[in-house]
């Protein structure tokens, strides 16, 4: 791989570009737009559609809101007047544990029990983080990753839909 600029005449510096991209990745940035005089560097990262975020690799669950101006009206979920459930909110940083089903979210096994987890709880892959009730079945939801809970995103007893972020977690 050559470290020279892309063409003899252009001042683009690939190394700088790589550094920028690494910064984006590390910080979950989706867009960088740098301008200096006649020079402009614009980088975008992440999927077009929030709906299409697929969990794979180190950035699983990172929702990148559509950066492109071409987003159709179809991205808008709930116009005024309708109480459509909120779309899976983009987690601006960190990773989230998502609901694997539609149902009712419970933080504990019984109303008098303490919550399975709260902010600061360390969880392992098989740690139960909540219960989601669907069709009278109380499904224990494991964390499926190791880390520390940094936020609980849903209130006890709230309905949740498939793919809805439930917890923020710092991996590690």
């Amino acid at each position, binding site marked *: 791989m050559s470290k020279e600029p892309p063409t003899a005449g252009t001042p683009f510096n690939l190394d700088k570009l790589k550094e920028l991209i690494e910064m984006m990745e590390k910080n979950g940035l989706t867009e960088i737009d740098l301008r200096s005089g006649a020079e402009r560097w614009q980088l975008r990262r992440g999927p077009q559609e929030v*709906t299409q975020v697929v969990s794979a690799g180190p950035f699983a669950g990172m929702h990148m809101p559509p950066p492109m101006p071409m987003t159709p009206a*179809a991205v*808008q*979920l709930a116009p005024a007047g*309708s109480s*459509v459930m909120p779309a899976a909110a983009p987690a601006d940083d960190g990773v989230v544990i998502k609901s694997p089903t539609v149902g009712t979210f419970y933080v504990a096994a019984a109303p008098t029990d303490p919550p399975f987890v709260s902010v600061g709880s360390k969880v392992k892959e098989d740690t139960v983080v909540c219960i989601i009730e669907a069709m009278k079945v109380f499904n224990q939801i494991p964390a499926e990753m190791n880390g520390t809970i940094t936020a609980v995103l849903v209130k006890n007893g709230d309905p949740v839909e498939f793919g*809805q972020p439930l917890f923020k977690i710092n991996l590690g």
Partner: protein
Amino acid sequence: MFQRVLVANRGEIALRVIRACKDLGIESVAVFSEADRGAHYLSLADEAFCIGPAPSSESYLLINRIIAAAEVGNAQAIHPGYGFLSENAHFAEVCQSCHITFIGPSHEAMGKLGDKISAKAIAQAAEVPLVPGSDGLIDSEAEALRIAKKIGYPILIKATAGGGGKGMRVAIDDSSLKNGLKQAAAEAEKAFKNAGVYLEKYVERPRHVEVQFIADHHGNVIHLWERDCSLQRRHQKLVEESPAPTLPKSVREELCKAAVRLAKAASYTNAGTCEFIVDKDNNFYFIEVNARIQVEHPVTEMVTGIDLIQQQIRVAAGEELPFKQKNIPCEGCAIEVRINAEDPAHNFRPSPGKITKLRVPGGPGVRFDSHVHQDYVVGPNYDSMIGKLIVHRPTRDQAIATMRRALAEFEIEGVKTTIPLLQEIFAHPAFHSGDVDTTFIERTTWASGTAKPHS
């Protein structure tokens, strides 16, 4: 009446049900897969839940997810639309056990009619004609010849284990019957390790005519006249109309009465369709019951003035049918075409993409039922139908003229559609004269790409 109804479907039929709920003052709960997130029609529901990823098997077909959505959404009833879970008797049963009203027939009726053998038994008991044939497998050539004499040629020899045309022969006389029996049996033995064959009268150029009926929980069963859906391509309906052209009034009435007898015999409730094939002498034979609302229900709505989806919901809520058989009109002529995102120039393969421009026809006599709009993205995950264009006019000639006008007005860019083929159909003299059967598309040459099945 229900306060909230969950719509267990997507696309145009989901929107259709949401609209019917709104018209009735009922709240609606939509469900959607991740592929449909953000679809405009979802915003017209009072609530919407994501139930899974794009594949139907992980979202729209998952019974427990849909029941859970109905529970968290406080829906007292579920409308299944067509396709997906609409004819799944188990789903209807689960709804019942969860104390959610399934807007459709009982799971018992669905089960009985879903099974071909029991459906035919019910038809027979209700004196609804079946395609004549052998009562079971053929044991000997002599038996075959005897049956042939009774039902007359041409005769279809079918392998009991058959499929895809294998082990199938048409016999036109005794000699070809004898040969055909041997060949079909040998072919079936080879292909399916089962040489059993049976006989059925071969209906030449059959017309597909179906009767819409609706039954309440108070013993009333009413038919809403018939639809002719003969214009098909690879068993996919392209054009549906009511009344059936060229069928004499007396035959239409017999057909409709037969459907009502069958529905009563099956203790059927809610809306359903009884499908028949009609031969060139206007004899009709029972094929099957579609135990759900159908894509083509709007043509019946237009000629009868009855909102079928609203009526389904009312019946499911226990209301009595508000009309009598003698008051059901069949006024004028209604025709529906299905507009699919398919590429006629490439053997009608699906043509997903973003609709970059859309000009929909309008004016008197024109109805367009669709969830799409300019900037809508037709995804590759579900079927290719993007809308139904329906016309209703005092006469069939006028309906055809208005359909031609409406198709000419239709402008869509970004995806290929079946509109060019539909335009050719509506310009075809045979279609104008009503001389159409289920083989029409296959045996006709079309300029707009190929509509043929195997090219």
